[in-house]
């Protein structure tokens, strides 16, 4: 067992700063365990959001040594403990208290995206038929646990605070899942260009790097959406073809 220093951000929407705590680290602990231990030993009023402790609920998102990660999935044995560990709340969303941020902007943003619009049912009993091959591509997107780490690390939101103009990688994944859904008949391409700010993404792949589910956000969601926007608005040959064939 070794004593390790944890610098945890304490404060609220009016301000705050890091406070140091020391606690014993034992084999197999994750950062969330250490936070709970500190909460029990020396900071009973420390606010932290958590739920499943298994990397599936997406509640315990934070910045550990400056990197956006789930606290429950970050092993202390993977961190250089001799330098201490810093734990900050997500920087892209306003702080409510300590490590808890207000992520309601994400819920409102999701509401803006056109919902699943299925075609007429294939059978009289109101069901559809889908080939297995058509379900494979969107399975990846359905792994999203909405931890918002991708939103946190996206520099368009994090550094430039363009929340009103850009929906962020999480909702690009959501839109891609709908655009590639074999039953869906809606099109979100115009909204992606004009309302959701897909042009703001400059493909630096920070979102992909932090995704705890390993979703290739940039390659498999954002870039295919950018290509759909290019099809519709920036490809004169395709536009001409559409005019000629009236498709």
């Amino acid at each position, binding site marked *: 067992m070794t004593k390790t220093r944890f610098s945890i951000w304490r404060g609220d929407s009016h301000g705050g700063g890091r406070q140091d705590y020391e606690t014993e680290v034992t084999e197999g602990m994750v950062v969330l365990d250490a936070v709970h231990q500190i909460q029990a030993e020396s900071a009973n009023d420390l606010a932290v959001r958590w739920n499943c402790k298994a990397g599936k609920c997406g509640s315990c998102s934070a910045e550990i040594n400056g990197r956006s990660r789930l606290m429950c999935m970050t092993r202390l044995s993977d961190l250089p403990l001799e330098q201490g560990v810093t734990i900050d709340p997500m920087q892209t969303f306003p702080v409510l208290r300590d490590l808890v941020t207000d992520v309601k902007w994400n819920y409102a943003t999701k509401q803006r995206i056109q919902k699943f619009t299925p075609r007429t049912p294939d059978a009289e009993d109101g069901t559809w038929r889908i080939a297995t091959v058509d379900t494979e591509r969107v399975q990846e997107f359905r792994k999203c646990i909405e931890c918002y780490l991708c939103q946190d690390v996206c520099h368009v939101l994090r*550094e430039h605070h363009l929340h009103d103009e850009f929906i962020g990688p999480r909702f690009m994944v959501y839109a891609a899942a709908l655009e590639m859904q074999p039953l869906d008949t809606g099109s979100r391409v115009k909204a992606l260009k004009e309302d959701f700010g897909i042009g703001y993404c400059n493909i630096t792949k920070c979102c992909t790097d932090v995704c705890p589910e390993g979703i290739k956000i940039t390659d498999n969601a954002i870039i*295919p959406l950018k290509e759909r926007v290019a099809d519709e608005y920036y490809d004169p040959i395709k536009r001409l073809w559409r005019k000629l064939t009236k498709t």
Partner: protein
Amino acid sequence: MSNADTLKRRSFGETARIDAWWLKPGLVFVGLTAFIAYATWAGMQGKHYFYDGGGAHLLSPFYSPLLYGQAHEPRLFAAELPSWWPSFLPFSAAILILAGPAGMRVTCYYYRGAYYKSFWADPVACGVGEPRKSYWGEHRIPLLLHNAHRYFFYVAGVYVFILFYDGLRALVYVNPDGSHSLGIGVGSIVLLLNACFLAGYTFGCHCHRHLLGGHLRIFAKAPVQHACYQCISMLNRRHMYWAWVSLVWVGFSDLYVRMCAMGVWTDWRIF
């Protein structure tokens, strides 16, 4: 977001990260700068791009297809330079063709992400403060023009076939009596590998994946396009590696031909 103004703005380089976040963008900066410097220098030389010693036929990929050149070189037009070329400007055959592949790389999704970080610090690394407060991204001109990537892809795709031709042509040696025979030399392997790496990079690009199948919602009705999509996706998963390997190798291919043409290296014929 109503309370976005309560969020903190970080200064350039400000971060809580303790890892070597500067290393990767630094390496990309050095790598791309070195290549751009070498390619510009080599492209402006206008000589030592073709080697025919010992019956070999090695043409530098920077100069292929060779539109204008010396009489003994595999030029397409029977002239050393175009008639319309201003006499006061130095001429190099590479000037006329390098824009195609360069445009492909400049607008490539991988390279865009890489040079936005390394050259423009936008962001310099994930979770690190940026130097500028304003940000347009690819939302407006000039970076909006990156949407022309697919057109550069079409051009670059043609170049790949030309480079395959060069690689295969390098397998044909001219004998002293003027007849031709098949052979393999180090130079022909270098040029064939160059075409293979460039094909892996070019045909594994995101827009190719989209154009051949990715744009479809329903694959079941288009099995051929689905098969293409699957194949391109396999290449695309390693797009960054293809990008770097092909970049380094195309530079080395030019260097190899140049060294042989200058008499510094000898092109070893294996059989």
